[in-house]
């Protein structure tokens, strides 16, 4: 019946899927304290328990009410965790105990509760999220005034603001909401009967809160909140099941985040509007050069607002705008299909700011209204108390305070002196230009505010000192008046232009500075070759760029998280910090100091990811100023991106080298196979053939022929034996199973042994041995070194012409003995002299049957290097003929104690 074209929305399916394995959340929502939420929750819990569900009361506040306590009696109650806070012992829900206990259903009262400092999370709703994530169902209670976006409304209705808020998301994600409704009259009766627990607030406030009008309004709010969520569920169900529309167009809503406190209201308005319109929404902060100079208080506020927006479900975005912020905001909005823009109404300004604005700087709100005609623009009005300083747009420097204005009178005083001097020496008519110069100078150095002040002061000073009648503010001539007015206008305008120019220069400088830092960082981090280099580059450069201690944590082999680098070097962190890092890794969110999760940690942890792949966790130890300054955020995020790139690059490089290694292994395997099939079989063919002739012989073979056959079998058998020995040696080398046991060895013994083993192969070669009588013993493994010598002699016999001597020589060379084996063969071309030590490398030889297995020299090198010696090939004669294989072996140091 379903239209095949109608596929469920992937996002909706994903959302449902993400919920699978999670516990289910049921919220008992009430309009006010005392409506009986806890009681209702316990009642429901008992019913579940009777059904055989394993219920545990993790935290239930009975507030001494007997009925409630009676309800709790039949339920298993988990012990609470005591915490010492400011000398008092307080108890909190034992989150870890609950997770360990793993009931089917946990009762967690008062969702909006704020945990005592030192708990894992700041808020109980965060605990609940973790419990749900662990697959445990949760029943909880909530009063409507604690819902984040309703908080403002409730405050306005009741005049009481509760500080404890719960993000709307909790309600959105609740699987069930039960509204505990009690008519206001009954609630008031209960209040008077002392059945309502009221925190120790002033009685007056309580009376105000429980006014009937308030209760009616609150009840309506909670009913609406519950109804909204039911609606949302229906919608999600429809989306998940591909039920056709009508869907609202996918336009989005955008809220502009500034440091103005009114932004908080704007965010809440945006959230409610977005919910109502069922659209996504974006919280956008604008970075400009002026923003660089915000007070840290203002930066904190912006960071707070962004976090609030994130909690409320907004997507966060930041744009950089050096001068025309409004145009950038509008362009962003167009690109992101935004229909509606919400921003806060800025508060009143000082006269000076108004003047400055009149001279060119508009408010964001006004400019948006003017330029963004194609958008629906909502100005949210604030109720929040404002801090001392006002909001301005573009944001103005505040750090330097009023001191900057001192430049204005100073400049005007200077200008006046200069004008006075000129006036006495050569009376000039256009002294106003001197003042104009002063104004422009002030604008360029101190910005627009002081420039406007300077213009005003200049206007007055010029009038007072140089306009007839002098030393009065009256103006005799109309022409002079016009000049003065024009001066005022001209100096304000030029001052403004100069100030804008200055702002732009500063903006560029800040952006260039940031880009420079990022570029530098990227370059330095990119130059690392190994993982360790890159990790070190990351931590040292992040630390250098941000000016704080830095850590990098990455998953270890056991699935844990371990510190892989730190600047200053550090390899351990406290358990608390490790827990925060673990959370950052698991949840993919920033944790630790300055965040909502484990804020008491010393470090701020930021997950580093490339696409969906989690790579590491970056830790920053921020100073006592715990908040991350907003303007560092884009930089930190960009750094995290760079870190991700660098780590990803290393990972890919490692993968690539693994692949190369694999292909080299593959080449060797192929070579080994062909070697085994050829080199192992050839002697066998001869042996079998010869043996067959002998076995089948009916007496026709001459005795010499029989002997020849038998000798062939022996020779080929010995060749096979050498080959098998090579393969065995190679295997030992390859598997690192080589354990050289060096002892004092007489080189002559070595030579004797090797010659003895090869006595048949060497029969047709005169062997010249040149060993000095005083040659010291060498400190080598006898068996391995003997094998090396056997391989070298074997090669010499293979490549040297029969009857030509093979020369074995040794000499002392410092703390080593140099032992060489030379043949009289054609020699190895210089470019091949290193290659011959590779595995399965054989020199092409016309005399193909002489070629060996291609393992002998590789084994020789492996054995010699494993004992701390070296081996190389050289030519015997100038013309490159003859091969000399030279071994350098460590001399045995006589132990003087024995």
């Amino acid at each position: 019946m379903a239209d095949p074209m109608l596929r469920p929305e992937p996002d909706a399916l994903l959302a449902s899927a993400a919920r699978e394995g999670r516990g289910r959340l049921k919220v008992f929502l009430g309009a006010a304290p005392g409506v009986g939420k806890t009681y209702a929750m316990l009642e429901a819990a008992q019913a579940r328990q009777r059904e055989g569900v394993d219920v545990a009361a993790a935290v239930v506040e009975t507030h001494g009410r007997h009925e409630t306590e009676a309800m709790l009696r039949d339920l298993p109650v988990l012990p609470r965790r005591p915490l010492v806070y400011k000398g008092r012992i307080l108890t909190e829900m034992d989150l870890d105990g609950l997770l360990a206990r793993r009931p089917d259903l946990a009762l967690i009262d008062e969702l909006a509760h704020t945990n005592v400092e030192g708990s894992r999370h700041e808020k109980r709703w965060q605990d609940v999220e973790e419990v749900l994530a662990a697959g445990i169902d949760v029943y909880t209670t909530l009063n409507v005034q604690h819902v984040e976006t309703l908080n403002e409304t409730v405050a306005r209705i009741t005049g009481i603001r509760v500080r404890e808020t719960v993000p709307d998301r909790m309600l959105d994600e609740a699987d069930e909401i039960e509204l505990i409704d009690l008519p206001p009259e009954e609630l008031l009766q209960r209040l008077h009967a002392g059945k309502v627990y009221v925190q120790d607030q002033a009685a007056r406030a309580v009376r105000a809160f429980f006014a009937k009008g308030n209760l009616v309004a609150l009840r309506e709010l909670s009913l609406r909140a519950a109804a909204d969520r039911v609606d949302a569920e229906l919608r999600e169900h429809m989306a998940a099941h591909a039920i056709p529309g009508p869907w609202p167009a996918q336009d989005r809503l955008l809220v502009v985040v500034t440091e103005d406190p009114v932004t908080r209201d704007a965010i809440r308005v945006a959230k409610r509007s977005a919910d109502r319109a069922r659209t996504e929404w974006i919280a956008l902060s604008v970075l400009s050069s002026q923003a660089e100079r915000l007070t840290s208080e203002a930066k904190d506020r912006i960071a707070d607002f962004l976090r609030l927006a994130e909690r409320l479900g907004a997507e966060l975005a930041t744009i950089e705008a050096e001068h025309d912020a409004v145009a950038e905001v509008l362009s962003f909005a167009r690109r992101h299909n935004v229909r509606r823009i919400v921003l806060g109404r800025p508060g009143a300004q000082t006269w000076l700011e108004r003047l400055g604005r009149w001279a060119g700087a508009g408010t964001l709100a006004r400019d948006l209204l003017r330029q963004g005609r194609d958008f629906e623009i909502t100005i949210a009005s604030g109720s929040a108390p404002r801090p001392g300083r006002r909001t301005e747009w573009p944001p103005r420097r505040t750090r330097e305070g009023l001191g900057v204005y001192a430049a204005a009178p100073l400049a005007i005083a200077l200008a006046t002196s200069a004008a006075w001097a000129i006036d006495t020496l050569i009376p000039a008519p256009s002294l106003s230009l001197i003042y104009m110069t002063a104004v422009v100078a002030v604008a360029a150095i101190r910005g627009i505010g002081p420039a406007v002040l300077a213009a005003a002061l200049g206007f007055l000073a010029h009038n007072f000192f140089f306009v007839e009648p002098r030393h009065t503010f009256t103006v005799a001539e109309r022409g002079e008046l016009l000049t003065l007015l024009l001066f005022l206008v001209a100096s304000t305008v030029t001052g403004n232009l100069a100030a804008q120019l200055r702002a732009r220069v500063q903006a560029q400088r800040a952006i260039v500075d940031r880009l420079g830092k990022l570029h530098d960082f990227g370059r330095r981090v990119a130059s690392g070759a190994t993982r360790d280099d890159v990790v070190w580059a990351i931590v040292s450069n992040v630390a250098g760029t941000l000016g704080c201690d830095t850590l990098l944590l990455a998953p270890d082999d056991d699935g844990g998280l371990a510190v892989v680098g730190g600047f200053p070097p550090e390899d351990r962190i406290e358990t608390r910090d490790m827990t925060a890092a673990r959370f950052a890794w698991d949840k993919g969110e920033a944790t630790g100091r300055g965040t909502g999760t484990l804020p008491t940690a010393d470090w701020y942890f930021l997950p580093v990811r490339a696409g969906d792949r989690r790579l590491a966790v970056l830790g920053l130890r921020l100073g006592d100023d715990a908040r991350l300054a907003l303007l560092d955020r884009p930089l930190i995020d960009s750094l995290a991106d760079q870190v991700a790139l660098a780590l990803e690059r290393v990972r890919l490089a490692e993968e690539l080298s693994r692949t190369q290694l694999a292909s080299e292994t593959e080449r060797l395997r192929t070579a080994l196979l062909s070697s085994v099939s050829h080199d192992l079989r050839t002697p066998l063919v001869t042996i079998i053939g010869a043996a067959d002739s002998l076995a089948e012989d009916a007496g026709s073979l001459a005795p010499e022929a029989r002997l020849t056959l038998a000798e062939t079998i022996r020779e080929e058998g010995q060749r096979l034996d050498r080959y098998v020995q090579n393969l065995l040696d190679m295997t030992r080398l390859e598997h690192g199973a080589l354990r050289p046991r060096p002892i004092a060895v007489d080189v002559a013994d070595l030579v004797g042994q090797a010659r003895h083993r090869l006595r048949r192969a060497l029969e047709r070669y005169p062997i010249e041995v040149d060993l000095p009588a005083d040659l010291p013993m060498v400190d080598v493994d006898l068996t391995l070194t003997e094998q090396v010598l056997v391989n070298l002699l074997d090669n010499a016999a293979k490549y040297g012409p029969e009857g030509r001597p093979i020369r074995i020589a040794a000499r002392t060379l410092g703390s080593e003995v140099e032992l060489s084996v030379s043949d009289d063969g054609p020699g190895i071309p210089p470019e091949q002299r290193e290659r011959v030590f590779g595995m399965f490398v054989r020199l092409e030889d016309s005399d193909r049957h002489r070629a060996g297995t291609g393992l002998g020299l590789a084994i020789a090198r492996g054995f010699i290097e494993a004992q701390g010696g070296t081996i190389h090939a050289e030519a015997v004669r100038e013309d490159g003929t003859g091969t000399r294989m030279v071994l350098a072996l460590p001399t045995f140091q006589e132990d003087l104690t024995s």
Partner: protein
Amino acid sequence: MTSAARILIVDDEAPIRRFLRIALESEGYEVVEAGTARDGIRAAAHEQPAAVILDLGLPDADGLAVLRGIREWSQMPVLVLSVRSDEGGKVAALDAGAQDYVTKPFGTREFLARLRALLRDRGEPSPSPSVLEIGDLRIDAAAHTVTKASEPVRLTRREFDLLWLLASHAGRLVTQGQILRTLWGPAHAEDSQYLRVYVRQLRAKIGDDASDPRYIFTEPGVGYRFRSQGPDHI
């Protein structure tokens, strides 16, 4: 060879047993075979062989177990068959009482020479000749003199004792431990350093060349072997 000495072969490889049997029987020995450690120990007890050829790699137990089983009640000569890479097994077998070894693969000549050297002392309660002549060396134990091609060789007391010890065991392996214990006393059984120095000096004096030895052969990591009197010096 007058009495047909009985030789026990303990090896799990039938082809090896077969070729050893042919080689041994052609030399006039009587051959008994065993394919497992258990059969080997039993045959050693029941058949009373003159010598045992023992492979170290047996399917049911370590060849060393057979060796120890035999050594519990008999000092009969045991010749161990070892493989080249198994230095440790070889040394362990010698420590456990094996008299000698051959490294696989080996030629029959070498194998028979070893076995002959092992059986030489058997039955003859050593009249211990006071003069040994090997090659152009003449060693007189009573007179403490050595001549090489009739030229006197001057040896110290220790060098002479070393030469006598090796030469009186001609063709047989003499381990470093045996030499050190005999010449320097049990306390010095591990001091193979001394031994190397003396062997070097001795070789120089009797005109032997380690890189192409004619008299004293080094058995790497194990000991020395003096050439046997016969033509088959290995």
